[in-house]
C-alpha cells in the first residue's frame, strides 16, 4: 500500500481524464461484451453438445454433428441405466453414501484441527502448523502405493474404508487451512468474554467457534461433496466388486465395452452423473466462487 502514496502527486487538471475515457468506451464496451459472449459460447458448447447427444439415436450420433438432436430419443437413458450388470441407480447410491461420509468427515475433523491451530496455544503448535502447510502441496499420488499396501494389510481393500477414513483424520489440508483463515476473522473478544464467564477451551469451541464457523463449514461440505463425486484414481484402485462401484468407476466401463455401440447410453449416464454437481453449482454458485477466493481452492 505504501507504493500508492509514493506515486507522484497529480497536477490539478487530473479529474477530466476518466470522463473522456468513459465516452470513448462505448464501442469498446460493445466489443467487450461480444467477445465475452463468443468465448462463453465456445466454453459452454461441449456441455450443450453432451446433453444434446444423450438424446440422439445411435444413427443420429454418427450422422448429425450438430449439438441438438433432430429427434429426441430418451431411450438412451433407459438403455444406459441397465447396460451394466447392476442398475446404475446403485452406483449413485454408493457415490452418495461415500460423498456424505466424506462431507461429515472433512467438516468435523478439519474444524477440530483448525480450532487448535487458530485459537489454542500448545507446545510445537508452529511446527505442526508448518507441517500442515507443507502437506498442502504434497501430491496425493506419491502416497497411493504405500497406503494401498497398508490398507491391504488391514483388509480394507475392496471396501469404502480407504476412501473414507483419511477424510475423518483431517488429511485434506486445504479445508484445515480454509477454516484457520476463517476463524482468524472471528473476533477474539468473543472467546475472551466467554472465558471470563468461565468457559474452557471446549465450551468456547462448542458455544462460540462452532456456531460462527457455519459459512466455512458449508463451503467445506460443498467442495468435499463435489471432489468426492468427481474423484476417480482412488475409487478405481480400492473398489473391487461391481456392487461397490461408484458412478465414476461404473462410467469407466463404457470405455471397455464394445465401444461405438453404447455411445448414446454413455452420454446419457455421463449427463446424469454431472447433474448433482450442476445442482450444487446452481444452488451455491456465489458461495463456491467466494470459497476459491478465500483459500485458493481449485474446483
Amino acid at each position, binding site marked *: 500500500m*505504501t*507504493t*500508492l502514496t509514493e*506515486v507522484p502527486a497529480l497536477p490539478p487538471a*487530473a479529474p477530466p481524464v*476518466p470522463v473522456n475515457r468513459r465516452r470513448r468506451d462505448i464501442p469498446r464496451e460493445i466489443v*467487450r461484451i461480444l467477445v*465475452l459472449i463468443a*468465448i*462463453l459460447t465456445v*466454453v459452454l458448447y*461441449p*456441455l450443450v453438445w*453432451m446433453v444434446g*447427444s444423450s438424446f440422439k439415436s445411435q444413427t443420429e450420433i454418427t450422422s448429425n*454433428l450438430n449439438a441438438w438432436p433432430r429427434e429426441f430419443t430418451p431411450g438412451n437413458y433407459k438403455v444406459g441405466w441397465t447396460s451394466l450388470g447392476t442398475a446404475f441407480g446403485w452406483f449413485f447410491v454408493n457415490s452418495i453414501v461415500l460423498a456424505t461420509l466424506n462431507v461429515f468427515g472433512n467438516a468435523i*475433523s*478439519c474444524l477440530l*484441527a483448525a480450532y*487448535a491451530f487458530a485459537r*489454542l*496455544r*500448545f507446545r510445537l503448535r508452529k511446527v*505442526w502448523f508448518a507441517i*500442515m502447510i507443507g502437506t498442502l502441496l*504434497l*501430491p496425493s*499420488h*506419491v*502416497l497411493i*502405493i*504405500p*497406503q*494401498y*499396501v*497398508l490398507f491391504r494389510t488391514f483388509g480394507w481393500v475392496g471396501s469404502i474404508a480407504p476412501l473414507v*477414513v483419511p477424510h475423518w*483424520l483431517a488429511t485434506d489440508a486445504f479445508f484445515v487451512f480454509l477454516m484457520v483463515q476463517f476463524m482468524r476473522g472471528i473476533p477474539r473478544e468473543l472467546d475472551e468474554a466467554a472465558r471470563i464467564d468461565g468457559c*474452557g*477451551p471446549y465450551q468456547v469451541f462448542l458455544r462460540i467457534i462452532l456456531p460462527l464457523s457455519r459459512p466455512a463449514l458449508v463451503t467445506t461440505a460443498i467442495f468435499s461433496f463435489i471432489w468426492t463425486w*468427481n474423484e*476417480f*484414481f482412488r475409487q478405481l*484402485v480400492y473398489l473391487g466388486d461391481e456392487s461397490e462401484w461408484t458412478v*465414476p468407476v461404473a*462410467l469407466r466401463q*463404457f*470405455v*471397455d465395452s464394445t465401444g461405438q455401440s453404447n455411445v448414446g447410453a454413455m452420454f446419457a449416464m*455421463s*449427463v446424469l*452423473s*454431472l447433474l448433482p*454437481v*450442476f445442482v450444487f453449482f446452481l444452488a451455491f*454458485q*456465489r458461495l463456491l*466462487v467466494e470459497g*476459491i477466493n478465500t483459500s485458493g481452492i*481449485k474446483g
Partner: protein
Amino acid sequence: MAMTTASDPVLSQPPVSRAPAKRRGPGKTPRREGLAGYVFLSPWLLGLMGITAIPMLISLYLSFTSYDVFTPWSEVEWVGLENYREMFTTDPSFWASVVVTLKFALIAMPLKLAVALGVALLLNRERRGVGLFRGLFYLPSLLGGSVALALAWVAMFNREGAFNGFLRIFGIEGKPWVFDPDWSLETLMLLAIWQFGAPMVIFLAGLKQIPAELYEAAAVDGASRWRQFWHVTIPMLSPVIFFNLVLETIHGFQGFTSAFILSNGTGGPVDSTLMYTLNLYVKGFHDFEMGYASALAWVFLVAIGVVTVIFFSTGRFWVHYSDADER
C-alpha cells in the same frame, strides 16, 4: 506440607520457578489449553502419522525392494538402487512419461492461465451480469475433472465428434484426433485449458485489489492502455499470478483421469498420453511392481519439490509485493 511450601510465594520465588512463570505470560490456564490443543489436534495428528508420514517411509523402503503385493513381508527382496537405475537407464516408459508430463504442465498450464487472465480482464468491470458470466465460466472447473467429462471430451474429438463437425463447416475433413499420437495429448491440454474458470476467479479478485488511482496516474502520464497493462496491472497482479502458476503447474503434473479415460488406462496411443501418474498406476496396479512404483513416486515427490523451490527462488525477481517496505 510439601504443597504449602511449593505455593509459598517467598520460597518459590528463586530462579527455579522463573521460567514457568514467564511462559505462563498473559494466558490463564496454559496446561489445560495445551492439553485441549492436542485433544482437538488428535484426529489430524493421527492422519498425519497413519495416512501421510508412515506411508511415506514405507514407500521409501519399498522403493529399494522388488516388492509386489503377493510376496509375504518376510520374503521381500532388497534390491538397493536397482529400481532407480532401471528407471533412468533402461525403462523407456519412464522417460516417455516425463516428456508427456512436462509438455502437459509447461504448455497447457501457462495457456490456461493466459486465458484465465484475459477473460478476467474482460470481466473486470462493475456491471450487472458480470456475476452470471463469472459463474458460467467457472462451471467447467467444477465438472471438468470428472470421468463423465473425459468420456464426452474423447467423443467430441473422435471421428464423429463435434470438433470435426465444426471443421466440416470450412470443408475440412477431420480425423479421430484422440487416437492420433500427434494430437491425443493436445486434446487433453484443451480439456485442461477449458477449465480456466478457477484461476480466472482468483485473478478477478486480484484485479479488484488494484487501486484505480494507479491507472489514473498512469493515464495522466500519457501511458497507453497497453503500457498500463504491462506497468500497472502485471506488477500489481504478480503475487496472484505467482500463486496461480505454482498451484496450476503442480496440479498439471498430476493429471490422471482424462489420460486414463482417453487411453483406457494404457497411456496410448504410442505412450502419447502416458502422464507420470498414469505410468505410476500402470506399474503399481496393473503390473503390480509396487517397489518400482514406489521409486517412481519418490522421484515424483523430489521433482515437485525441486519445481516448487525453483518457483519460490525465481519468484523474488518478478513478484512485486506492494507492502514489501512494511515488512
